[in-house]
Structures are given as structure tokens and as C-alpha cells.
């Protein structure tokens, strides 16, 4: 039996102080449900699916901007598939496509640049969402477009960074299950700084064993009563992270305030292209007006992301809102808390 045996026993029988731990990575959310980890935990441990799925935290106004570019400016929108179904104020990108907009699903930003190179008569916009893990490939797409002299490629940015979210969400939980992929880029210093500020967490990997181990270590440390940080994913996450990835992002982008769906604006928690790259910034290039997105009132995605309610406590869950007809973003992506809860039977 693996080392997870002890971790599992510890988590099943945990009888220390109540412990709320928040995962802030869509892949963690998905994997926790897929592995049935919630069912293993002692009732004293509560897992909260926080804001970690890029699709789930992307605000309505961002969808509205993309729809505007597609329908009003005739741009070709290239995007990861999940975003296509996220509802905007009036419509989703799927709705815009039905009205004749050109919406292309791609698997990476470099595919979007390739498309732009092959279709020089189209203005191609890539929807640049995601955290520290994916942002480097977004700016590399800009770099490639510059090198190839493409003037028909730009990014609509909604990139986000984690430290701001940790601080904003710190009161909603006792510790974070830090996202392994983010910290393989940024390193561990941010987590150590959080610990200094009294915010606890462990960096976790993504297999069932790695998740159980990280959760058990976190629970044990929590029971000791002092703020803590442990890197439980050392086979991938090093202290210094990836300086090359950090440097290239810093060359092209600068921090900005960012709206998080369901949570609100968190200062300096977003990334935008620097002024010298304005030609690749769709917001500036196409002079998008200030669009105020409107949310569906009954949807409680925000409360789900902050761990205030479980998905099934939302009045729309499984009824008006399901994976075939998502109302809130958390139901759209398979990494969203509501979608994972629905698909894998969170209450099993």
C-alpha cells in the first residue's frame, strides 16, 4: 500500500479543531471530486472549492467584450472551448456564433497565432484567461505574432494572479491547498510571505495520493495551531519556480486591478499588456467601450466560490442550471465546483 494509506487513515479519523481548507485550482477541484476525496474526510474537515478555475472567475463583462468584438467589430474570436458557453449579459459566445460571429475553439494560444498567420484578412483575437500557469504561453503568442509581423492578432486579457486572491479569500478558510501548477512557475516565496501574514497553506500535487498527503499534512499542522506552509509537491515545485517564465511575463505585462466573477474587484490581481504592446491589446486596439456586465440574480456562484454554500444549496443547482444549460460559470467548465459536484455526485 502507498504512503496515502496513513494519510487516508489520518484524514478519516481526524478529530482536531474544525478545519476549512480551500482549493484554488480547477484541476484540484476536478480531481478531488473524481477521486471521491470528500467522502473520505472526517466531518471536521471541510473542503471549499475556491476561485481557481479561470472560466469560473471570468466576469460577465469580459464575455460581453468578446461578444462585442465578434459582432460589432467582426473579429474572429479564438478561445478555449469552455468559455464559449459562459453566459454574458445578453448572450454567450455560442449565442454570438448563432448570430453569425466567427468563434474558433483552439487548444493553445500558439494555434490562435497560426490561425492569424493563415487568415491575414481577419482580425484574430485570443481570449487570454488563466493564472500564472497559462499567462506565459499567452505572451509568447504575442512575441510570435511580433516576430512574424502579424498585425491582425491581439489578446483580450483577463489574466489573473494568485497572491491577491489568497489575501482576499484568507478569511473564508483556515488554509489553502495551493495550486501546484501555479507555484511551479512562481516558486514558493509567495506562500512563505503568506505564512508570515498568518495565512496558511500547503502546495499540493494532482494525483489521489498527492492530494491525500497534502490534506493530511495540512490537517496535522492546523491541529498544531500555528500558521504554516509546507511544499508537498517538491518533485515539481522548487523554491525559485521558473524565472524564465516569470521574466517573459514581466516583460510584456503589468499588474492591474481585476474583477473576479462572484467575488468583486481585487486590487492588482490581474495582468494586462504593457503600453508598448498596445497594438496587441484588443481592448485598446478596438476601443472597446466600458461594458458593465449584469449577473443573473438567483445564481449563487459567488457564494460557492467563497465557500459560503455548497453547490447543491444554490436554488438553481441541478434544475435551471445544469451542465447542458449552465446559468453560472461554475457549471460551465468541468473544473467548476458546481459542474464537478453535479457530475461526480458530491453528496454521494
Amino acid at each position: 500500500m502507498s504512503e496515502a494509506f496513513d494519510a487516508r487513515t489520518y484524514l478519516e479519523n481526524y478529530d482536531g479543531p474544525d478545519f476549512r481548507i480551500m482549493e484554488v485550482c480547477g484541476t484540484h477541484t476536478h480531481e478531488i471530486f473524481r477521486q471521491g476525496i470528500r467522502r473520505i474526510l472526517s466531518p471536521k474537515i471541510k473542503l471549499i472549492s475556491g476561485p481557481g478555475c479561470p472560466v469560473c472567475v471570468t466576469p460577465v463583462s469580459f464575455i460581453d467584450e468578446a461578444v462585442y468584438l465578434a459582432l460589432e467589430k467582426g473579429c474572429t474570436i479564438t478561445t478555449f472551448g469552455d468559455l464559449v458557453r459562459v453566459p454574458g449579459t445578453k448572450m454567450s459566445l455560442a449565442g454570438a456564433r448563432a448570430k453569425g460571429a466567427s468563434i474558433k475553439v483552439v487548444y493553445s494560444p500558439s494555434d490562435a497565432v497560426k490561425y492569424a498567420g493563415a487568415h491575414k484578412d481577419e482580425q484574430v483575437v485570443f481570449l487570454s484567461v488563466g493564472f500564472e500557469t497559462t499567462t506565459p504561453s499567452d505572451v509568447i503568442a504575442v512575441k510570435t505574432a511580433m516576430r512574424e509581423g502579424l498585425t491582425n492578432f491581439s489578446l483580450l486579457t483577463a489574466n489573473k494572479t494568485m497572491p491577491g486572491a489568497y489575501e482576499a479569500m484568507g478569511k473564508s478558510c483556515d488554509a489553502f491547498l495551493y495550486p501546484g501548477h501555479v507555484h511551479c512557475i512562481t516558486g514558493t516565496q509567495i506562500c512563505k510571505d503568506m505564512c508570515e501574514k498568518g495565512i496558511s497553506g500547503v502546495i499540493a500535487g494532482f494525483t489521489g495520493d498527492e492530494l491525500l498527503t497534502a490534506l493530511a499534512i495540512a490537517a496535522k499542522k492546523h491541529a498544531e495551531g500555528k500558521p504554516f506552509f509546507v511544499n508537498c509537491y517538491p518533485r515539481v515545485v522548487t523554491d525559485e519556480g521558473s524565472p524564465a517564465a516569470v521574466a517573459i511575463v514581466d516583460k510584456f505585462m503589468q499588474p492591474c486591478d481585476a474583477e473576479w466573477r462572484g467575488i468583486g474587484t481585487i486590487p492588482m490581481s490581474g495582468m494586462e499588456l504593457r503600453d508598448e504592446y498596445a497594438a496587441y491589446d484588443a481592448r485598446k486596439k478596438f476601443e472597446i467601450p466600458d461594458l458593465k456586465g449584469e449577473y443573473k440574480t438567483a445564481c449563487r456562484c459567488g457564494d460557492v466560490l467563497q465557500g459560503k454554500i455548497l453547490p447543491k444549496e444554490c436554488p438553481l443547482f441541478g434544475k435551471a442550471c445544469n451542465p447542458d444549460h449552465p446559468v453560472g460559470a461554475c457549471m460551465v467548465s468541468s473544473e467548476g465546483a458546481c459542474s464537478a459536484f453535479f457530475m461526480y455526485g458530491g453528496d454521494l
Partner: protein
Amino acid sequence: MSDVITLAHGSGGRKTSELIAELFKKNLGNEYFTADDAAVMPKPEGKIAMSTDGFIVSPWEFPGGNIGKLSICGTVNDLACMGAKPLYLTCSYIVEEGFPVADLEKIAEAMGETCKKAGVKIVAGDTKVAGKGQVDKVFITTAGVGVIKEGVNLSGANAKPGDKIIVTGDVGRHGTCILLARDEYGIEADVKSDCAPLWDAVDAVLEVCPEMHVIRDATRGGVGTVLYEICDQSDVGIDINSEAVPVAPEVRGVTGMLGLEPLYLACEGTMVMMCPAEYADKVVEALQKTEHAKGAAIIGEVTSENKGRVVMTTGIGGKTYLPQPGNELLPRIC
């Protein structure tokens, strides 16, 4: 004969006759193969089963087979799932104008070989040629008749609580192979389709377990879809041990990267079987002695709890639902 298929090849005239003689008869000919309007065969003893299936896989050729082999395996396996020994097939081609004759020959050769292996005869056929762009290269429809083994009663509605669930081999290989063959993800991996005719495997199983309850071909939608269908048809629940589900390492690698569940990817030479528990080991043993079911394994059992749901016990001992079959946009695979 010309190098490419033209509209004249589908006109019913001289060129059609040429094509039948040089290409189809050569590869598929047998004593019943007819140039008349219908084939005439002796009446088999017992009940017959009949099935039909259309094939539009893209690309038409893939590691481990091509659309010709697939079109035989598909119908042969559908008949086998009812406990029927496949006897006769018909096939109908719709070929795109301009399709290379050499490629059509490759397809006919594969069909001929697969028929021999499966012990089945193609007795009648039809060829139509559609204008450029009206079909994607070549589409094939086969229909087949088989004779049902005596005393066998198989149906998706027959699963009973306590039955063991067996797969005849590793899952998701055909679906993964086709995803890679379309080269949309830029991933290179050596994944061969499991495409194979399985009558010999089914025959061997029915010899040791005539009381077999369910046999299903896990084609489109994969094993996961089959399990949910059986839950509904038989009004039962299903428990699966995820560790016991055989998945080839290369398939696990690719699906892991793409976030796909192998249980939902198509198989073309893997079946799901459900039988009373006391027969399960014998069934697996019999399967493992046949050419295409060496990887057979027991993966779970039918229950009276959680009706309509497939519950998975995960590698770390957690329990989750296997997500319901979704409407994922996957490419044409069969």
C-alpha cells in the same frame, strides 16, 4: 481501370461491372456473392439475428485498421452481442468522386481478410459514387444476418444484482487512436485501434456460460455509455472498481493529457459482459484464450443500490459517480 473513382463507376454500366469484377469480387468473392439483384442462400437452423451499421470514420485509414475492416467488425460484433454466429453480410459503398482506386482496393482487401477471420461471407453489395465534396472520401454501410446459438438469451435488460461485469480487453483504444490520427492536438503516441471481430470470443464464452445475461459492444460512447444504458434497461445500479479497468499505458498517457475519460472513448474490439458471479472466472479464462480478448478482466458488479447510476471506487478508496454520458464534441470515430 483508371486511377481514381469517377461518377461513371457508380452509373451501373460497364465501369461499375469492371469495379465489381476487379476489385470487389477478387477480394470478397465466395459461392453466394451475386451479380443478380439479391443473393440466395440456404435457410439456417434456428432463430436469426439481423443488424446494420453505417461507417463514416475520418480518417478512413488509421493505425490498426481502416474503414473496411471496421465495417465488417462493427456488424459482426453487433450480431455476436446477441449470441448470433455471423453468417452473411451485405455492404454498400458511397465513394467520393476522385477517390483513388488503389485506396478502395486497400479497403476491399481489409474487408476480405476480416471476413475470413470472422467466418462470414459478403453476399451482395452496392456502389454509388457521389460528386466531389458530397461525401468525405468513402462511407460504408454493412448489414448482416447471423444464427443465434441455441439456448442463449442476451439482452441489456437482463442484468441482475450480483452479476459480475467483465470487459474483454483494455478500453478506449479506438477512440484515442482516431483522435491522434486526426492530428489536431499535436500529440504523437503509438496507439493502435483495437478494431477486431469477436465472434470467436463470444462463442467461447457462451460455451462455458450459456446463462450469460448481457453482452454489449462498447463502440460509440465507450464502456461508460454501455454501463449507463444497462443501468436504465435493467433498472439496476453498477459498482466499478476504477483500478480494475484495463487501460493501455499509452491510452492513459494521452487521455490524461487531454482530460478525457478512457471509459467514454470508443472501442471497436472490446465488449462488456455481465454474468452470474459463479461463472465470472471461467468466462475470463475462456476469453483470455482467444486472440482478441487476452486482456479480459472483471471490473465490477451489478447492484440493487444507486439504481440508474454507475458508482466508481477510486484508486485511493474514494467513491464517485462515473459522470453521465455527456455531449462532448468528439470527431467522427466509426
